[in-house]
């Protein structure tokens, strides 16, 4: 939850009153609100936090950051599904940090 994760915008849709992108985070695709980054177009990379794109970034930075976050083991926690979150909570007597790091030490 502390971290913003880089992803590639694959598609942009208008859903009612919102500009929504389908963003690919190294294989995991999520719906992401693009209202804070009007400059972003399909094919761009952006950093995303809890479903919101915050800033456009270049491809090289995006890919390197993605690889580093994956190596640190924080990607899964940021992108986990509801079922995974409850499964993790069931196994974790102590509360994890926003980036899911506590259980991984």
């Amino acid at each position, binding site marked *: *939850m*502390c*971290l*913003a994760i880089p992803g590639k915008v694959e598609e942009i849709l208008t859903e009612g*009153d*919102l500009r929504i992108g389908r963003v690919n985070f190294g294989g995991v695709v*999520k*719906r*992401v*609100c693009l*209202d*804070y*980054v*009007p400059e972003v177009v399909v094919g761009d990379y952006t*950093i995303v*936090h*809890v*479903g*919101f794109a*915050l*800033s456009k*970034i*270049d491809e090289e*930075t995006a890919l*390197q*950051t993605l*690889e*580093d*976050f994956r*190596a*640190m*083991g*924080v990607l899964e*926690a940021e*992108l*986990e*599904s*509801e079922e*995974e*979150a*409850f499964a*993790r*909570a*069931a196994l*974790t*007597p*102590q*509360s*994890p*940090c*926003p*980036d*899911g*790091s*506590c*259980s*991984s*030490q």
Partner: protein
Amino acid sequence: MKYLTEFRNGEIAQSMAREIAAVTTRPWKIMEVCGGQTHSIIKNGIDQMLPAGIEMIHGPGCPVCVTPLELIDKALAIAAQPEVIFCSFGDMLRVPGTEGDLFQVKGAGGDVRVVYSPLDAVDIAQKNPQNQVVFFGVGFETTAPANAMSVHVAKRRGLKNFSLLVSHVLVPPAIEAIMSSPGNMVQGFLLAGHVCSVMGYWEYPPIAAKYKVPLVVTGFEPLDLLDGIRRCVMQLEAGRHEVENAYERIVKFEGNQGAQKLLAEVFEVTDRAWRGIGVIPKSGWRLSEAYREFDAEERFHISGIHTEESPLCRAGDVLRGAIKPAECAAFGKECTPRHPLGATMVSSEGACAAYYNYGRFLSAEELAKTVVSCQ
């Protein structure tokens, strides 16, 4: 423990560490503010690469850990109500209140759901008009734009069954509180890169000037952190105290102005308690007058819930580096990872939990002492 840096960019990292060692002539204490940075420092063994005199002090940790006990108790009270669908980020599930946590509320039949984005909670409200849907809006400035947009969209769509339980905290007042506390040992800060991607760093030059403290906007990857530490040490050695950006590829001075505009509309500054640390003036956001009708604290009449933080907890002193965790009388007794009193024990990244669980920062002699005090 094998550190990640050994696998990637190990040589560049080593040469940056040597550069830091070369410019260091005396001990310095530097605080990284963000829990994500703490995690990366520990995972990558960055602290082990630094010269002996450079000590990294782990900051307040994360928004989850500093969420005051009273708000957790309010969340538990709301989530237990039969008509409520309580939505949260997954990380709040196991944060203990006075009695139990959200995971246990769900186990007891409460409708507690984990969402990826606050907008998912707005969608749930639209699909369940017979229920009250509450989103637990915690977080630093990085998360605030998402929470602000959720309530903005709910208002635009005229939803009467959506509300926000707000516990936002802010970085600049926390830095001021640390710098102005008696016995403060922190001499420089790494500013959280993603907070600054939203807010920019225009708020910080007055703080650097007032407290004569270098502030370096820093990223999360090993080389980013080493670069941030290097720049901070160089300022300290030169007697400079400036705001510097070591994360230029993400952070601009002005930040994301669209996000800041909506934040100013939806939120207003308020005093906020930090778990185990106490109230820091003007260190949080609450909903502004225009959005007050979406405030879960008002909608659910829970203003009667007042939970005092434990007077035993010395998390504030630990954070400032004034005492070591084992010097706190409650450490390992009233305060353990399962029954944490303060932020530094809530998260296992926190200094107290790290001492308790891993003895990571202890000498053999200190460790022996700690083990005794745990029993």
